């Protein structure tokens, strides 16, 4: 935790960089260092489907658009092997690998404007104030897009998913118990892909139900540990657990489940989160932006349950 003197020194440094011609880049870099760290820590979309940096050379040019597009190959299905008697030849199949397109859009924070003389009176770390508000907005948008697509992918609650032929959005009765959580983990492996759950996503209210587990449910001293120190586990039931405070996106008593990212799709980052800062006379303006594209190439590695 920096001291107040250190914070003021940081603020003065930022202002000096903004004041000096040609030094705005350094001021932007100073903020960007912090920005990227927070983004990695906070967005659950990025933790579930880590962004892959993509460069201009890796984009696939299209005839009918100059917007960035990336074409991704998908594992092809193949006919099953069969048993045959002797002197019989195999059937043929022509190799055709399916593909899908990932397209990109931009997430931009609101642009803030402020008279610099008013900023001088702050004694907090001005870099943190500048970037925190921007990043919160951007993370909310990024995660919101992910959850919207996810809800579309898992399909209607308690109805067979038309792609997998089995339910991927299931209501489980009995509240949150050891039995119902294990039942939840059975949803995804029942798809034709037989994926196992690698990551579970719940909100910070739902996870507290697990604190109620007794020694007989949780398993020995682990129950004692979480009743003393709270939930600090990231691995439980052979899954990685991600707990979010975004209760508007991940509702109470709901749990999303994910297979390994390689079975789900792609999340590309074309332009990493960048903070634009400009000072014109005594007015300061700043906003953050990034360019990302993502698609689920396969939806059998996604599932959702609602505990009732």
């Amino acid at each position, binding site marked *: 935790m920096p001291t107040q003197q250190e914070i003021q020194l940081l603020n003065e440094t930022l202002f000096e960089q903004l004041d000096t011609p040609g030094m705005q880049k350094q001021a932007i870099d100073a903020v960007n260092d912090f920005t990227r760290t927070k983004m990695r820590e906070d967005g659950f979309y990025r933790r579930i489907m880590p962004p892959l940096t993509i460069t201009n050379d890796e984009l696939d040019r299209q*005839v009918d658009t100059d917007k960035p597009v990336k074409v991704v190959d998908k594992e092809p299905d193949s006919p099953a092997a069969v048993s045959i008697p002797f002197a019989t030849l195999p059937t043929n199949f022509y190799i055709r690998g399916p593909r899908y397109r*990932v397209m990109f859009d931009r997430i931009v924070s609101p642009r803030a404007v402020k008279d610099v003389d008013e900023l001088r009176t702050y004694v907090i770390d001005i870099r943190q104030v500048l970037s925190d508000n921007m990043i919160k907005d951007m993370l909310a948008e990024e995660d919101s897009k992910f959850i919207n697509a996810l809800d579309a*992918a898992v399909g209607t609650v308690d109805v067979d998913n038309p792609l997998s032929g089995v339910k991927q959005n299931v209501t489980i009765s009995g509240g949150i118990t050891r039995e119902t959580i294990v039942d939840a983990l059975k949803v995804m492996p029942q798809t034709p892909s037989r994926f196992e759950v690698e990551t579970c996503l719940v909100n910070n209210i739902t996870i507290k139900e697990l604190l109620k587990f007794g020694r007989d449910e949780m398993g020995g001293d682990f129950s004692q540990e979480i009743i003393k120190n709270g939930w600090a586990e990231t691995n439980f039931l052979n899954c990685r657990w991600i707990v979010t405070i975004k209760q508007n996106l991940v509702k109470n008593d709901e749990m999303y489940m994910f297979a390994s990212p390689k079975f789900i799709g792609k999340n590309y980052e074309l332009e990493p989160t960048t903070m634009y800062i400009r000072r014109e006379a005594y007015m300061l303006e700043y906003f953050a932006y990034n360019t990302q*594209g*993502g*698609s689920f190439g396969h939806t059998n590695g996604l599932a959702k349950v609602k505990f009732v």
Partner: protein
Amino acid sequence: MPAPNLLTENGLDVKKGWFDMASLDYAAKLSSTVTFPVQRGRVVHVNTNGDFVPGAHKTSPAIFLLNGSEDADVSNPGTTAAGNFMHLAVAPTGKLSGLVATGGYEISTTEFVTGNTYQPGDLLSATRSNATTPASTDGKLTNYSVTQYTTPVVGVVSSGAGKNHNGIQALSFWCVYLPGAANWNGVQAASA
């Protein structure tokens, strides 16, 4: 295989007034009632749900689309024409953006009724075939039967119509927004 479109076939060039950080633009999704592709340059308005609908509106300002609904930064459909799954996009989310007619712009657009004759100073509105159900021809600029204080006016012709630098017919105009009369019936024909 459907024939591809040229990048330059539909769209608008903003001759004056854009871009600048202070430019007035607006982004929203298309209304779910719009089931056809909407081209770059078309005129839309914001409905009561906050979504874009092609055509002029008597009180909702016109917006000139910078993106088409099938642009790669707007939509990434992942279901084939036969209904088979290809992918499901996380991004883009279907939002289009456009310039609001109350901003100060001179625009050259390909999305206008080409059969009409346009003179500098002509008032422009945008086609709308039905007050409630959008049609694929809605949202094109026209000067046909545009009456001041009756029809919603979305622009005034500047230099007029002609082929642009891409060889595509385009109409140059200044955008403006003059609401229509309270009793305007919501229909704007393209031509006689």
